[in-house]
């Protein structure tokens, strides 16, 4: 059962990837803009992760990483 699910997931991913437009290198100017970064401001992202980690039960899922803290 699990292997079937994995197969479906791989097929869906393949269809999604191949279904996307073939963007030529010279057509990637907008994607190269600074405001299109996953993390446009690294320090801002680190600070937010630290605050939300301290005030909510959830954490993770971000590219920023760091150690724990005794934050209350």
């Amino acid at each position, binding site marked *: 059962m699990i292997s079937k699910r994995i197969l479906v997931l791989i097929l869906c991913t393949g269809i999604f990837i191949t279904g996307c437009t073939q963007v030529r290198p010279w057509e990637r100017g907008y994607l*190269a803009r600074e405001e299109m970064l996953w993390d446009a401001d690294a320090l801002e992202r680190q600070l937010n992760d630290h605050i939300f980690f301290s005030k909510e039960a959830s954490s993770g899922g971000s590219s920023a990483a760091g150690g724990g803290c005794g934050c209350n």
Partner: protein
Amino acid sequence: MKRKPSRGLIALSTTALALPGISSADAPPTENTLSYKISNYKEDDLSREQVPFGELGRYDIDVHQFQYVAPVGRNFSVSVDANYENMSGASPWFSTANADGEPVINMSGASGIRDRRSELSIGARYYMENGNFGGYVGYSEEDDYRSSYIGVSGEIGFNNDLTRFSYGFSHAADDIFPTDAELFNRVRNEDKQSTSAAVGLSQVINQFSVFQTAFSVTEQSGFLTDPYKLQDSRPDNKTQLVLSNSYRHFFVGPDAALHADYRLYHDDFGITSHTVDLAWYQNLGRDYQIVPNLRYYTQSAADFYTNIDDFLKPLSEHQSSDYRLSAFGAISGGIHFIADLGDWTATLTAERYIANDKYSGFEVTQPSPALVRFVRVSIGIDYSF
């Protein structure tokens, strides 16, 4: 917003045509960047209804962040991050019932808490033709807490570099040694370990949009209880699962970019959460940018959460009145102003966060009276040379 020539040059001239829309480009930064940000974080006071006796004030924290990123040769970059926090205030100590049977909060010590946190981390990254690989080590210290951590991560591009596979692995070892341990019968010295693994896939959808999905697993073991709560006992193992999705779309007409992020979280304390984050990066001419953002967060309660501590229950049975383990929702919004002044970039940020059980997307059977509200203001400066 003015484009820095180096960014455009990277985008148009590298053979791999690395996509900044996909976390790290396949070329090291072309110039040194020195960044500094100072922030003040202040929580609203609680009311006398919520806290019948003692302190009403909560945390007030100043945060200083420094970062230096430098290219080394043609294929390497190094980074150094240093953070310093100075905090004072009080936090919920235990919860009891008032005359009406409603939960009320008792705050920690009449004189409040004072603490400092210093952190230093160093990273390096190697850039290949169609990917990159790097790592970091770090250390942070407080008066009552120490953390050492290490991590590695990388990316590989394929499908004409329209698709990228990313991976990461990290480990943290923490020591906990509460202050006034003898006076309040707290634990003296405990430890905690956290290990994470993550994989992700990014895809260029068209010339205006990119999408990323990532999955991570974190295993925590050791002392996961809050030593400063009077009646707090938690399991000593926790598994956290996170599925995160990000979408970026550039709008040519208004010269702006939409950032949309969604995170699904679940752990075996019984907590599930949803986080939605939206931001609009609006360019104003060549030199200025304004970024409003809105975030919604909601979580279910931990299996052992209680909003009134049961002091007759032995600590061998798990329970906690920590508001962070209750069911609630939170709405936050902020605005950022960014000015590009040649080699200098200045950023001003203001943010407001309000948590409330009424905002919860999950059923709330035991609302916490200690949910937090805060204001955060930051000023940041970057200098490239």
